[in-house]
């Protein structure tokens, strides 16, 4: 059990508690951004700034290698009371992902009195649960790094080395709407849109491997809208799809294949017009398991927890995809907490795991400097 009086004195725990008390659904991160800028200045970070989209960025150290620690400040909507009960801290974002960001800030601040660890950039970004405005702005800006760790819950011994890519497509079918008592006079937009979806679904099911879902293409419908009344033949149907792409292929290849399927339907002049909109496209990304970054974090986990690290590939898609692709550097995602509590109404973090994570980030930063080697020049 954690001593409550000691808990309040621990700067890592008080920082997390204060962060959780600031409610930050996507688009409303500014108060937390200002709070963290003030706190990072107080801790001794250099060049602390809040950019035009409200990302907060600060650095410690200089030289090479340059390491980015990036966590997001926003959460999914839904207030949860912040409370500490024994070894647990409850609150919206306790798992996804304020614990990771708080641990990164504290770990980096503990390097300030050290020498020769390179440059550590800590970024708290906005809108990860939305459209990724924060990470896109960070990539567009001047930040460059040799390595990056993204803070998301992975469990204390798990390092996420890969994420699938994602395409979100909306398929729109339009026909002439007629009286439902005379369906032969037109074509049913819902049924025709489903015919196209069936062909796409067959394509994405090819090579399906239930024992290795990370390396399989998967697709599902996430939204559907069609029809206006119980007695009117539907004249419009919109199907939104979510397609997850393994690293062996690419979004552009899958998109091209799907467009070829649609073109076949469109070559039939009697088939209704199908429009396809690309809502989002994020390429898959996987880091080399032999990179100094993976080793640095694995060794830190071993030293701090005495547990065997596990490398994990996830069927979701993370901010590290965009960053890794843009900068072509090793990137992993790592942070405390049970990832399956994300987006639920019972988010909590174990204080012991959170404090271990501070130590793991800290040791990993020192290890990266060691494993990077003195002769390798930084890209910055």
């Amino acid at each position: 059990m954690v001593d409550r009086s000691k808990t309040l004195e621990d700067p890592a725990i008080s920082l997390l508690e204060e962060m959780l008390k600031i409610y930050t659904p996507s688009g409303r991160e500014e108060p937390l951004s200002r709070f963290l800028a003030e706190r990072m200045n107080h801790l001794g970070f250099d060049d602390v700034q809040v950019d035009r989209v409200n990302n907060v960025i600060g650095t410690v150290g200089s030289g090479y290698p340059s390491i980015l620690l990036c966590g997001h400040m926003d959460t999914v909507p839904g207030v949860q009371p912040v409370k500490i009960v024994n070894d647990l801290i409850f609150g919206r974002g306790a798992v996804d992902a304020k614990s990771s960001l708080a641990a990164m800030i504290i770990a980096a601040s503990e390097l300030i009195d050290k020498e020769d660890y390179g440059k550590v950039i800590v970024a708290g970004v906005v809108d990860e649960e939305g459209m990724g405005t924060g990470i896109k702005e960070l990539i567009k800006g001047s930040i460059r790094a040799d390595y990056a760790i993204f803070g998301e819950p992975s469990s204390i011994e798990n390092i996420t080395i890969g994420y699938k890519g994602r395409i979100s497509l909306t398929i729109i079918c339009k026909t002439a709407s007629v009286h439902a008592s005379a369906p032969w006079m037109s074509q049913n937009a819902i049924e025709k849109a489903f015919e196209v979806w069936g062909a796409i679904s067959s394509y994405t099911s090819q090579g399906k491997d239930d024992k290795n879902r990370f390396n399989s293409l998967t697709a599902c419908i996430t939204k559907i809208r069609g029809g206006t009344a119980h007695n009117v033949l539907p004249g419009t149907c919109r199907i939104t799809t979510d397609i997850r792409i393994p690293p062996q292929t690419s979004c552009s290849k899958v998109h091209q294949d799907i467009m070829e399927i649609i073109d076949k339907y469109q070559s039939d002049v009697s088939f209704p017009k199908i429009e396809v909109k690309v809502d989002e496209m994020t390429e898959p990304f996987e880091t080399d398991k032999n990179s100094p970054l993976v080793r640095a974090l694995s060794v830190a986990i071993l030293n701090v927890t005495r547990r065997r690290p596990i490398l994990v590939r996830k069927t979701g898609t993370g901010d590290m995809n965009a960053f890794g692709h843009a900068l072509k550097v090793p990137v992993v995602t790592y942070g405390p907490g049970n990832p399956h509590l994300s987006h639920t109404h019972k988010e909590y973090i174990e204080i012991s795991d959170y404090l271990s994570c501070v130590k793991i980030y800290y040791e990993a930063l020192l290890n990266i400097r060691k494993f990077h080697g003195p002769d390798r020049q930084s890209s910055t």
Partner: protein
Amino acid sequence: MKCPECDGDIPIPKDALEGEIVTCPDCGASFELHKKEDGSFGLRTIQVVGEDWGE
């Protein structure tokens, strides 16, 4: 050290720790380093790479 899967060469860092994950640069198979009775390292074939859903 020879890879049990493809016989490729797996480099073992001089400062390697027991429990570390090493990966064959040729075939990509990963192994856990374990200490043998004589103090030297061996490769253990266990699941060091997993799969999960979510972000």
